[in-house]
């Protein structure tokens, strides 16, 4: 069964400077138990989609169902099956991480024993045990974020929405959170998360969607996205080549004070020879998800507005 099905889902906001088309006829299907990521630039429409799917916002047009239940018509049934980490949410000032987890679970109907044992588990898994009795107001920002994510993941709700769950976390903490998210998916929850860390999306997601300007540009596996951009090798030049020269070989970005080129294997070999002739240093590697993302979204922006990236 599908966990989420959206059909021609649209949302327009009445902004101060005219109407904003945040989602434009979005078609989306997410299989049950899938670990799914949304990628997209700021303002692409990710949060808008999550709010609509979690019954926090009404769509302007189209339909959306979770587990076959209409979200617009049956918000109450939907709410029984979901939990959400809102973008830039913050915990209560005066409660400790353990209280957040236990009280939230009990408010959702868990018994004291269940709440306690799940709190034991999630606090340990998220590295919060040393801080479990410290009020959130004196915890660092990343620990507060971990507290919020812990209380939501502990629900084991059938559908978990995580809007930038690892924002502000250190690399160790992020890896711990990834493990807990994977664990939730293994236990049967469907997870929809957004992130601007492309390495995170690459590590974590079984499937992803790229959204730009309210449109879905891509839905599929991270690997398929990389092959979709048809460039598999990444070359980085500090000096020695001009942007115009490289543009003939593939997609070029200005990066780290030099130029990064995404290209095919054959062309990469040719360029490697030429750089040896010119005696310039190059750095070669496989294309990352981040680069595939930049390419895909970059092309979409260029089609829409060729000036935008110049």
């Amino acid at each position, binding site marked *: 069964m599908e966990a989420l099905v959206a059909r021609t889902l649209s949302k327009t906001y009445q902004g101060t400077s005219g109407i904003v088309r945040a989602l434009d006829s979005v078609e989306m299907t997410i299989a049950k138990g899938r670990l799914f990521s949304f990628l997209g630039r700021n303002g692409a429409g990710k949060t808008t989609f999550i*709010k609509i799917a*979690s*019954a*926090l*916002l*009404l769509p302007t047009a189209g339909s959306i169902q979770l587990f076959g239940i209409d979200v617009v018509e049956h*918000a*109450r049934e939907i*709410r*029984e099956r*979901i*939990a*959400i*980490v*809102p*973008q*830039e*949410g*913050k*915990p*209560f*000032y*005066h*409660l400790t991480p353990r*209280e957040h987890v236990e*009280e*939230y679970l*009990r*408010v*959702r*109907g868990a018994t004291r024993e269940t709440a306690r044992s799940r709190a034991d588990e999630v606090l340990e898994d998220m590295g919060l045990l040393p801080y479990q009795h410290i*009020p959130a107001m004196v915890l660092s920002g990343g620990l507060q974020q971990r507290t*919020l994510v812990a*209380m*939501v993941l502990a*629900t084991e709700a059938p559908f978990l*929405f995580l809007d930038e769950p690892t924002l502000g976390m250190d690399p160790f903490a992020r890896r711990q959170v990834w493990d807990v998210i994977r664990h939730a998916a293994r236990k049967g929850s469907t997870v929809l998360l957004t992130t601007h860390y492309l390495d995170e999306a690459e590590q974590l997601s079984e499937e992803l969607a790229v959204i730009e300007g309210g449109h879905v540009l891509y839905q599929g596996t991270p690997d398929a996205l990389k092959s979709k951009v048809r460039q598999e090798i990444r070359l980085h030049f500090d000096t020695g080549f001009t942007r115009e020269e490289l543009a003939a070989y593939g997609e070029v970005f200005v990066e780290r004070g030099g130029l990064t080129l995404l290209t095919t294997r054959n062309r990469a070999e040719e360029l490697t020879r030429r750089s040896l002739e010119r005696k310039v240093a190059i750095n070669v590697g496989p294309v990352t998800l981040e680069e595939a993302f930049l390419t895909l979204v970059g092309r979409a922006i260029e089609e829409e507005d060729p000036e935008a990236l110049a």
Partner: protein
Amino acid sequence: MTWRTQANAIWRICYFYGFLALRRQPLLFIAIFLTPLSFLFFLYVVAPHSVLPYGVTGGIMFTALFTGNGMMTDCAYLRLERQLQQVFVTSPLRPMSWILGMALGELAWTIPAIGLFLFVLAIVVPIGALAVVGLVGVVLLTWLLSTSLGFLLSTFFRQLREIWPIGAVVFTSLSVLPPVFYPIAAIPADYRWVAFFSPSTFASQLADHAAGLSVPTISVLPGLSSIPVEVAGMVVLTLLFAAMAMRLARWREP
């Protein structure tokens, strides 16, 4: 969730939002005493001592009324700044249970202050157990009315900056201008009916009745100052505010 689990959820919210906060941030609840005690002190210094009991019931009513201010700022803050309302409504918890839990949490905060004022009242006028029961009843009615209004107002805010000035205007004018701290007899008889545009007048008249203080009837509309009318007025306003709040609440944004 059954009604029993909803009731338990309401109690949990009251416990962790009201009682735990009371225990951990005691400085904050001293702030609750401060304003009504200052008014009382002011009355004690400048007014004849016969007015003092009205000031003490006024302190009780002021505290009960300000649960609405707390409700308004807390609900708006948790929704707009912490996004926690969203975390709680995207759950099996009913929106109504969230409101009730928060409102009970606000009430929990006022318990020490109201206890203190009741103690002071017992010192300045002879009151029996019945008066205390009556006053507690009035406090509960006022709390329901005021937190309904507070939640209603919280639904209008679109950003945090708007909260504080509006709270100050609304709840100060509800509790300082109408006859809450002073007897309604201080208003010229022909104009007393004006005071009944404020729900807090019903509340404080009831409190004065309950404490056994003398309450003049209103010459223009004699029925206004009688207990059944006051109770009915408060219940109707409470239901009105609560109904509007439920309609306007942003469980789901348009």
